[in-house]
């Protein structure tokens, strides 16, 4: 039988990798404070899990490391911080590593990322959007002009990696743009966490002048798409993990809560609502795993987007339904279900990442 992520999850290898991630969680203190992206990467680095993700040794090991990474991150809540950490590991690092051969700057940034010293903000790329910035070369410099309509920025992110098309090449030129660069303006910002540490920004680039050293090299669009697809798939797995946690919390609450001396969970109407959610979650998990298994297949893009959209919408549904079923007990700011509900909402920003046309094809 073909090896699939689903079948691997019951293996001993899976158990040992899961245990390593759990051990990493225990290193974090205090447990209740969601860590920042650099803190998450530092934790992974200390236990060699970053190294294992980069060089897993086998296809099976890679799949399992990816699944357990996503689940591990989700254990800290689906948040801007975990999303940014996933972005560094799935997209930024592979891109920098790819460019390292021809760029000392890329090599340095890759090393700094692994040491959790310098992280990139995330451009939420609207595929085929007309306002992508353009780049032109004038002498020893590059001039960048345009707008980035949706970026996720955190207190510990220091630069943007911008893929641009240039007049001379069909490949994507990658530029490193520190957030403090002259000409880079944040036109609008919306906080996506209660702490205000993370925000969605609209950024304009007005005659931004960059040196050749900041031009890290070029990649073809397939390379970028592949990395983005993996990130989407792992984000879907993380969201499913959060949905599972929320559903379990809700079920446990309804099991303990009594009405007429019987658990609320025994009420058919509630049990059937939860059962429908449980079935949909099983399906979302299967879709995300099938996308992960299709990393080398021609339909990876469609499966990655489908799994992300499906899991994103399901998390919204489950968190909303479970908040409702939690009654007034959970309709308060310090409730786990309320946290999940609020965090699920900010994920909507990323729906722009999935064009309907990719799925409708």
């Amino acid at each position, binding site marked *: 039988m073909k090896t699939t992520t689903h079948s691997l999850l019951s293996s001993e290898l899976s158990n040992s990798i899961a245990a390593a991630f759990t051990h990493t969680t225990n290193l974090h203190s205090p447990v209740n404070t969601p860590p920042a992206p650099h803190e998450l990467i530092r934790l992974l680095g200390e236990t060699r899990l970053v190294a294992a993700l980069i060089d897993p040794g086998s296809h099976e090991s890679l799949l399992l490391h990816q699944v357990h990474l996503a689940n591990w991150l989700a254990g800290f809540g689906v948040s801007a911080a975990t999303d940014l950490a996933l972005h560094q590991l799935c997209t930024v690092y592979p891109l920098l590593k790819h460019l390292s051969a021809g760029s000392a700057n890329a090599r340095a940034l890759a090393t700094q990322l692994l040491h959790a010293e310098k992280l990139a903000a995330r451009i939420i790329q609207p595929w085929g959007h007309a306002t992508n910035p353009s780049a032109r070369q004038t002498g020893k410099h590059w001039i960048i002009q345009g707008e980035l309509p949706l970026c996720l920025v955190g207190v510990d992110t220091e630069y943007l990696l911008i893929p641009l098309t240039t007049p001379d090449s069909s490949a994507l030129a990658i530029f490193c743009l520190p957030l403090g660069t002259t000409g880079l303006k944040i036109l609008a910002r919306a906080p996506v966490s209660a702490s205000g540490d993370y925000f969605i920004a609209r950024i304009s680039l007005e005659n931004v002048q960059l040196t050749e050293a900041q031009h890290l090299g070029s990649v073809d669009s397939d390379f970028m798409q592949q990395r983005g697809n993996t990130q989407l798939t792992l984000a879907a797995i993380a969201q499913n993990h959060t949905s599972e946690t929320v559903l379990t919390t809700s079920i446990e609450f309804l099991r303990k809560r009594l009405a007429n001396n019987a658990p609320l969970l025994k009420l058919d109407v509630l*049990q*059937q609502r939860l059962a*429908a959610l*449980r079935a949909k979650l099983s399906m979302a998990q299967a879709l995300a795993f099938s996308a992960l298994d299709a990393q080398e297949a021609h339909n990876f893009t469609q499966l990655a987007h489908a799994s992300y959209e499906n899991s994103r919408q399901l998390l919204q549904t489950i968190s909303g339904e479970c908040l409702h079923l939690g009654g007034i007990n959970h309709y308060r700011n310090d409730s786990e279900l309320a946290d999940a509900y609020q965090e699920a909402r900010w994920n909507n920003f990323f729906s722009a990442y999935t064009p*309907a046309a990719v799925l409708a094809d």
Partner: protein
Amino acid sequence: MQLTDNQYSQQLQQWLAQSTKTHFTNGQQQWPVREWVKSLAKANLSVAGWPAPYGDGELRKQLHLHYRIARNAPGSLGLCITSHLDIGARCLMEKASPQLAEQWLAPALRGDAILALAMTEPQAGSDLQGIEFSAEKKEQGWSLTGVKRGITNLPFADAVIVLARTAPNRSPFSYTLFLLPMNTPGVEREVALPTLAYPGCLGGMQVKNALIPEQNVLGAPGTGLILLMQHMATERLFVSARMRGISEMLLEKIQQHSALATDQLAKLKTQSLAFNAFFEQCVENYIRQSFPARESASLKYLGSQLLKTLCATLSEQEGAAGYLADGNAELYQREAMGLALAGGSEEIMLAIIGSEL
């Protein structure tokens, strides 16, 4: 649907193209169930995925058969063939004694005998432990009495696997499975039920003191309900293969319609991809013999939801034509309603999932 044997798939496609052309070009109203089973057997396509000595044991091949027929043939015919081959005959293959299998399985696979599986009664559909159809041990074998109704293939079946009460209480060990030949004295076949879909395919029987030999017991006496519950997982998997076939065909029809908004189409496509992924995972688990009731119920429930959504979309797309009684959209809509009940209704599926929360 994942299938590594392309040769089987091609042969099946060719056979379907030929058989559909032969039987449905003149608007034929009688479903050629027996002819199709015979023809499938002659082409070595009917049980190619069964375990040896019948086939090569590749379950996906068997699921592919019903998925393909669902995509290509009118609904009633496909449902009847699934009920005969992989619900009825498979049950016999897995649970009958060698003598009983020798007597009935070979003719069933040749198409000389059509089988049905009878659980539902006029007063007991969802509550199998509430059935009244009973069997009493006699010196010469077992005497069966009761009524079954709403059973696929019963209007023309030659033998029926029947669940009967063999003890008065509701213990799970109070029920036994029997193979009841329809020509047994005391068995009276009812006329086919006038169902919304599947005309002529669902029927009933009234049985009074029908005496059958001891060897017609499937499994040990008293284990019928438990055996049937295990078999229900198989039935739900095969019904879901049909749902997947019809769903994919409907989605292709919907995609051809230019009026549908891209985001609406994207949503349907996502639902379809999700169901397909879950279906493949369920097949994987079934092969590994790790396919719990919760999972088979989830599969059936989700397939039913998807099919209804697609049918409703097609009806809306076709405007007034979508609601005409003999229009394609309405026919599929009715079939979706019927499949939602096969193997247990959506509410039963949710109750099964809910009981394990």
